[in-house]
């Protein structure tokens, strides 16, 4: 297995609340990883630590074998990130935002961004403040993908989306991204959404990974007809 991102013994607490406690995980190149856990279990915290937004307390993160320290930035050029609640500067238009975002990424592909705008039916002149949540998700996705990332981190991207947009995202877009060889970490508490798209499943509970394996193997080891929700419930209630 080629680990493009490796996290070892990661710990983080807020006050007395230990959110992550010796968390260890690897992301395999080119695969879609599902990270599930209940609300407040630390999925968002984990992704924010990976993105260098907040500091960790203990543990190491390696990107392509290189140790990442808090404050490092170069690795971020190769990571796309869609936050739980994708919000940007609302006075900007789509084009203004993409131009602002492009400045951070040397590998930015404007023609790809334009193609995604057409593909996702987003008007370049529309202001962000007049966009729906689904449209903002699409914009975030374009911003992340046009930088040609090695890894795409998705933090509960579908919560609050209307059904058609969610279906489009899950059934088509994720597949298209994977087809480019991008490694995806899809963190969500809506576990059922991952049923047909992930290749590896990790369950976060009480700050640790309690399950981390190839999804097919998990299914094989358990009752084939068991849904991902049932697998999740089975593990977190043990």
């Amino acid at each position, binding site marked *: 297995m080629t680990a493009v991102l490796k996290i070892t013994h990661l710990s983080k607490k807020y006050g007395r609340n230990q959110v992550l406690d010796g968390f260890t995980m690897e992301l395999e190149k080119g695969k879609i990883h599902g990270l599930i856990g209940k609300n407040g279990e630390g999925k968002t915290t984990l992704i924010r630590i990976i*993105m260098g*937004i907040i*500091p960790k307390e203990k543990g190491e993160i390696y990107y392509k074998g290189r140790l990442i320290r808090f404050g490092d930035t170069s690795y971020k050029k190769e990571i796309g990130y869609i936050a739980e609640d994708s919000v*940007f*500067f609302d006075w*900007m238009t789509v084009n203004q935002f993409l*131009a602002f975002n492009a400045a951070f990424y*040397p590998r930015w592909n404007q023609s790809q961004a334009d193609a995604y705008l057409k593909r996702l039916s987003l008007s370049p002149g529309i202001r962000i403040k007049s966009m729906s949540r689904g449209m903002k998700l699409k914009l975030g996705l374009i911003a992340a993908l046009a930088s040609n990332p090695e890894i795409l981190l998705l933090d509960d991207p579908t919560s609050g989306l209307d059904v058609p947009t969610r279906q489009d995202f899950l059934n088509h877009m994720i597949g298209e991204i994977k087809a480019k060889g991008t490694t995806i970490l899809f963190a969500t508490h809506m576990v059922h959404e991952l049923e047909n798209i992930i290749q590896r499943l990790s369950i976060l509970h009480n700050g640790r990974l309690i399950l981390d394996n190839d999804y097919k193997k998990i299914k094989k080891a358990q009752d084939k007809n068991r849904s991902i929700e049932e697998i999740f419930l089975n593990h977190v209630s043990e």
Partner: protein
Amino acid sequence: MSQNKKLIFKHFFIKEWKEKSLIFFLAVLFLAALTGIRLSGQDELTMYLSGMFVWIFLPFSAAMIGSSGFYHEYKNNAWIYLLSRPVRKPVVWIFKYIPQLTMVLVIYGIFLFVVLVLPGFKEILEAFSFSAWLFHYSALSSSLLISITAFSLAFSLSILHDKPFIIFLTTIFTGAGISFLVNLYSDFLYRNYYGMNDLIGMSYLWPAAFILGSLYTFSRVDFSQSKAKLTRFILITALSLIAAGAISTGLTLAHWHFRGRDYMYNLTVRRNDVFFRTKKGTLHYDKLKDKTTRITRRRGRAAASRSGDKALLLTYDYHQEGESRKYTYTLKLINSDGSEIRRLVSTQPPGTPFTGLRIRNFDISPYGQEVVFITENPQNSTMKLWTLRSDGSGEREFLPDIPDLDRISIAGWTSDKRIILLAVKRSPGQGTEMILLSFDPDHRTLERLASFIRKPHLCSVSSSGKFAAYVYFDPNAEEEVLEITDLFSGSRKEIHRGGSVQDIQWGKEKDILVFTIDANQVGIFSLKTGKISAFESIPAAVLDSLFPSLDWVSGDQKLALRGQDHEPEQILIMDRDLEVREIIHAPSSFRAIYSMDRTILIYNQTDNQLWCYDMDKEKWKKIY
């Protein structure tokens, strides 16, 4: 900066300007209104609004821009987006700070442009300049410094809260509080280290402490944890403030020790000699030898004969006895090189008429043959006048019979060796009165020459010893009068009435008097014609009532005046018709000007420097 960074900065620049454009346009609108009012010629309203702009609107606008420094990140919850970009967090902070600071600077720049372009505007603004501790603070530069400080403070705080109004109020109170504490601390140091100036660099260091606290918090602390953010900000800022205080104190004390404390006192200028005192002792500059030597390590001051070849040196020292200081004084006649001719008086040895007395004032006659000094008995405050010949013989004392006498000083000598004195009377209920007296040492008589004297430092005797010039207050007209008295006939001649007499200087050789009135009026009175030969307003002149701002040069044919109140300062050389003939650029700013005929001396009171300019060689030299 790399191409990538330049591009990021460009986008930040556009973003920040667009987000804060409302405040900017409000400021421009205010400036447009101000320009309109100025153009319509409404001076009073222009003055009112200009004052409001420099002291209130500009600093407050700067604080408002800074207060909303991170407002849009809070409002749009765009922290996650911004902090997850591949750029270092301090860079994000700085790339937001600089564009917003430029906005403050552009508003200021537009205002400055308007001020410089519209006639008379700069002069109106000068009314808002102020002086403190002999330093001049221009309204324009002070307002800019305050605005940048207010902006930096507000911007630094803006990472802590989403409501700009809260940040704005916090900025005002924090800024006022810190300024108050800095002043308090500065006062404390000043009281303990006499002669120390303001805390060096503190005006810049304390806002920098907030910038450091903000930068660290923004870069290293989990932004989502408000309490942790605030705690860490306070901790880092407090430590930085302590460090700022320590650095500033260190710099100030070092400056005070090596330069600041080394003040010059008791400057006496004669034709070829300059005497002055520093902490190193009493020094003498000999123009002919172009050399400065220390004539004694002791504290002292000198009075020199007109030629300067003989000087009277008063040295004094003290020791603490309980809560009071016991002084000992020694009066010596010295050569101009400092070599002692003879010791005339000492108050230390017991059993002499001078034992225990304080020597308050002293002088040597123009040709160096007679000496006069005034003593005070610390027990009963009795003042006595002593005269003796410079060879030490003929010592005589005189107890002036002047009711309510508080103190006496020596104004000069007449050509027949009488001494012109200035006596200050202080009586309960009647206040203070100064009178001009003539003392005849041979006949031991005192004669009153004039009453209601004002500005005692201006009272002086002409070089011929025939006339005395002084300023007195006419109680009937309630105005100042510059007057000359003939010291032989007793006749009085009114030279100028009204306004404020700033300075007077007798010619070095001739009976000619130059005087200055108010800010820039200069007059020349000739005893030969008995008339004012010239009286002009010299706008380029900077006249001062505390320090001499003009003197005669080139055998009393020309005048040297202090000109232009900002660096590089100038010396204006004028003929007797008060036409400026030459401008000499000074090597430093200066407060006082003296002449040694063809050599001009300037005294930089701020930096304790003494420079001389040789008019023949056209060269400057730093004496001290």
